């Protein structure tokens, strides 16, 4: 048992407890974005992937580093972007003029209906 390992274990356990404390306060409404955010956080493995790319010195090492970097980068970029995309949809009040399809469709529908009744009259 080295002191370094003991320090690492201490940090791990304390971080786990902080995690339980912080995350148990997240409401069920946000559980999907929470999981997605946790997903992006474990993308920190990119740091590990970069460090192995820096020490690799043979073909096998380069292949492992390449795959690890690709996996980790996909994890970190995708995770943060999709979390942001989801959270942007949570609104306190409905958006007044949504640019999304359903809003547009109903507006078009009303115009069409107005035109239709006009021509029938």
């Amino acid at each position, binding site marked *: 048992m080295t002191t*370094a390992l003991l320090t690492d274990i201490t*940090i*791990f356990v304390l*971080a786990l407890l*902080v*995690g*339980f404390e912080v*995350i*148990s306060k*997240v*409401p069920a*409404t946000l559980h*999907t*974005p*929470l*999981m997605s*955010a*946790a*997903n*992006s956080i*474990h993308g*920190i*493995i990119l740091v*590990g*992937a*970069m460090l*192995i*790319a820096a*020490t*690799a*010195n043979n073909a*096998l090492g*380069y292949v*492992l*580093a*390449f*795959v690890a*970097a*690709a*996996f*980790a*980068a*996909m*994890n*970190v*970029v*995708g995770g*943060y*972007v*999709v979390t*942001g*995309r*989801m*959270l942007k949809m949570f*609104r*306190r009040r*409905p958006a007044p003029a*949504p640019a999304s*399809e*359903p809003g547009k469709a109903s507006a078009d529908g009303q115009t069409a209906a107005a035109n239709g009744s006009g021509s029938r009259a």
Partner: protein
Amino acid sequence: MSTFNWIIQLVYVAAASCFVLGLHLMNTPATARRGNQLSTGGMVAAIAATLAIIIHAGTISATGWIVMLAGGLLGGGAGLYAARTVQMTAMPQLVSIFNAVGGGAAALVAIHDYINLAGRAAGPAESITITTLLDVLIGAVTFSGSIIAAGKLQGLISAAPVTFPGSRVINMAAAAIAAAASVYLIVTPSVPMLLVVIAAALVFGVTMVLPIGGADMPVVISLLNAFTGTAVAMAGFVIGNWALIIAGALVGASGGILTKLMADAMNRSLGNIMIGGFGTGDGGAAAAVGPGGDVRSIAADDAAIQLAYAQKVIIVPGYGLAAAQAQHAVAELAGVLEERGIEVSYAIHPVAGRMPGHMNVLLAEANVPYPLLKEMDEINPEFPRADVALVIGANDVTNPAARRAGTAISGMPILDVDHAKSIIVIKRSMASGYAGIDNELYVNPKTSMFFGDAKTALTELTAAVKTLVA
């Protein structure tokens, strides 16, 4: 420690703090976006610090740079594309894929480290070997298990529990081989034996997830999320980086909490879920008991009258709503009702959907304001005041049989839909839900069934309400 190292370590501490504070800000929807931005900032800082280490050390080869940048750009591009284009109904698959690549990357870091150390005369120290093995084992299980989970969610692999003769034996054998090979490795460094550990762990991951049924996916995804976090933390032990340890532990805690919440919401133990779903054996026998009483069906016009003259309507969406892509249709109906001054809210069961909180995201996408999305404990006392409870594609989570002992779902927390003054259920047929038992709600004298596909039925209903009030 040199000044340079001091600065780098402080940046890592700052990054880890950003992750914690970012998660903390997710305790309300109003601050959650800021939380995500803060977390992103921490990540950018950690990556920048790592680049600084690599440049400062100056030992990286040109090939190393190319490998790192090419891998990063390729993976980052793929992640960006997936994140921008994914449908919200497909979120569980995407989260599974991110779990897979995260766990896979963590395993690869440990594998690389082990091969390097095994090549040296001294060989790896025992404590390094143990954390390396934990990283490889957990990472590989997460990788293959998450890919199978994503395949099931996407419909590429049958969502029903997949079992074949000997599948349980293969699963047990894989676990035994992985454990035995790991013990051997702690005593004797050997790269070929590491490959045995990797292969056995991959097989274990596949045979672990295959027998799990589709409706148990919220639990499985949460569990695999916890695994990924733990694997990343172990990678932090291996390369001696505290930022990885802290980040991994946070994710492990998050996955652990969600796993427990989901299992509790189904009133099932984790062991029970891992062994295999309902409906594989005794479900048929329970169904034979059957309900007595008649089922009343209702036409769109009559249902519209009930809704249009109600004061309070509670909508109960289930996975059937998401499967029919009817979240926009239900939001439109709710909009029409609200214009008439009717109080509309949504009752969300924790396992409505294919991952924790999935239904909330789908409704948020359909522009439903989040204050209307109510959690089970919050909405249950409101059902007696509701004139109409409109159940759309939800089944087992509304079944009053859960309150009695002796049924397949006994003890499962349910939405008290039967306490509403009247109930309208939109459903395609009388088919039973995942638990394989009949829903007593459907034969309640207060209940009317509106048979049809959720989207078509809701569109008809909206049109009928509009005609009625015009």
